[in-house]
């Protein structure tokens, strides 16, 4: 393997940062908007839905899809930056 120990550690740290920022969004839309704060959000109308209900039954799934795509793109960039891509 061509990558140095320092680089490997720096790569891993950045990787963790990316994962945690995306997982924070994941947590907020599903557990936050869809469960914990659903009643508060339901006071807000959203294209014929109550916003909390929409997040719980549809919105969170759309966000999940977007998150994985964004994550895959970010990681491809990170792999190139540290020259660890295949």
């Amino acid at each position, binding site marked *: 393997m061509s990558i140095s120990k320092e680089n490997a550690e720096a790569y891993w740290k950045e990787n963790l940062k990316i994962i945690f920022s*995306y997982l924070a969004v994941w947590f907020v839309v599903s557990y936050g908007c869809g469960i914990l704060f659903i009643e508060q959000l*339901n006071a807000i109308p959203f294209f014929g839905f109550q916003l909390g209900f929409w997040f719980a039954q549809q919105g*969170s799934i759309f966000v999940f*899809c977007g998150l*994985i795509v964004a994550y895959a793109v970010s990681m491809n960039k990170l792999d190139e930056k540290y020259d*660890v891509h*295949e």
Partner: protein
Amino acid sequence: MGTQDILNFVFIGASFALYIGIAIWAKAGSTKEFYVAGGGVPPIANGMATAADWMSAASFISLAGIISFIGRDGAAYLMGWTGGYVMLAMLLAPYLRKFGKFTVPDFVGDRYYSNFARVIAVICTIIISFTYVAGQMRGVGIVFSRFLHVDINTGVVLGMAIVFFYAVLGGMKGITYTQVAQYCVLILAFTIPALFLSFQITGHILPQTGLGATLDSGQSILATVDQLSTDLGFKEYTSGNKSTLDMFFLTAALMCGTAGLPHVIVRFFTVPRVKDARSSAGWALMFIAILYTAVPGVAAFGKYNLIKTVNGADGNGTAYTEMPEWFKNWETAGLIGWNDYNGDGKVQYAAGKAFTGKGKPAFDGENRNADGSRVVTNLVSEPKAVGDAQYANEVYVDRDIMVLANPEIAQLPGWVIALVAAGAVAAALSTAAGLLLVISTAISHDLMKKTINPNISDKQELMYARLAAIVAICVAGYFGINPPGFVAIVVALAFGLAASSFFPVIIMGIFSKRMNKEGAVAGMIVGISTTMAYIIYFKFMGGTKDELFMGISPEGFGTVGMILNFITAFIVSSMTPPPPEEIQHIVEDIRIPRGAGEAHAH
């Protein structure tokens, strides 16, 4: 035999011919092809195969019905069964792909340098997969019996024969490419009726936006369903009944369970590179989301349609003789039952059980009343109106109706009904095949090759894999014909076990270099035993609602088991020596994508 039966035969028959053709084309020649399809599946194809593998007969037939009946709380299933893919993509799939072995027990055994850990993982794999597959084989039988009018057992045997063909012959390679075809069949079969239904009720083509639509009455569809529900004594559709804590734990258990299910994880071993594992998780979720985001619409429209049709425009009931054809067809099939308690000749639907026991009708053979309806024997003695309802409930409606009867409700042509039949069969078969493969791999690879006799050749191992697949199909078929009690608790058990065993162990194996075998083994044992004990106590030994731990339902207890697993593992590992140097190198290595190459055995 009617024209519809012939159409059903043609569609299901043609789909089978396609699957068998693919199986012959994709015959596996080595263990690597049998276990991970040679490690060369393109990410989009793997995404489709994962989606088909993931979406079972329950997703296809029952999910919309469940949500239709429980309303907002159904979100736990919608989010739980999709959100797990975010964790898979970010926390598991890329690293397991880099690790580059064939199975989940492979990872557990190697990372924790312990055959004991491997054997526990094999046992968990087999329990999880068999619980799951028994329900699938039953599902295949039920679908056959409904659409082809054969006996359920004949249906199970037919399903076994088809799965046998492509799982035993083609292994993962055969399964992957048949699953791609099965995905296409099932997604068309689900979306075509859903689009028509949405358009007819809301004027929106997409059920996703149709759910937010405003009806001609000036009220939104959701507000209308809320109103209809409360008028009939049901709970409001858009409010929740479960406690916030229970919803939280249930969703978490389903998400972590999804990310820890062996038959899902193993799909990510089949792609060529680490970056393909990430992108194929994205594809998989998008393919799944096409169905899952349409489901809430189908559920609400189904409820609206059902109430409007049964109770009529004036809300006082529709005369049985005026009922549309689909109502009578599905009554004949046993999914709808009616008894005219108030003797007005009209069918009335409201909250409350129309029949004794679980509320399902017990039909008096083929005997019919004067109006042509079927005679039901388990009548309630004093039917009462519930809540705000004006009348007592007279109807039993099986939740599966919401999807199965859609094409007829939307008055779509016969070929759409036949397509739904083929789609339901595809959904059940694709999941069954994926599970059977995981079982056979666990036996031939993890037990035979890695634990009992490491000296067997690749050819012998492949033969064992095929033999194990045959045995697994027979056992699954037996459970399909004689369904054991545990089929009903399949969700709780399979997801609870995956969440409380594999999920934490794999996460710790990747993200902690310090985690050692003592910690992992102790964590797994504590996680599984508490979860199993809780589920068995509440599902089999008659545990009551007041005894629930903090009000958490058995389905959501996997989350508690998972937390206990993490805590135990960290405490035990901090008191025992760190893992050997070479294990720490393995962990460092799986964190870097370069050099994944192909999945290898050694």
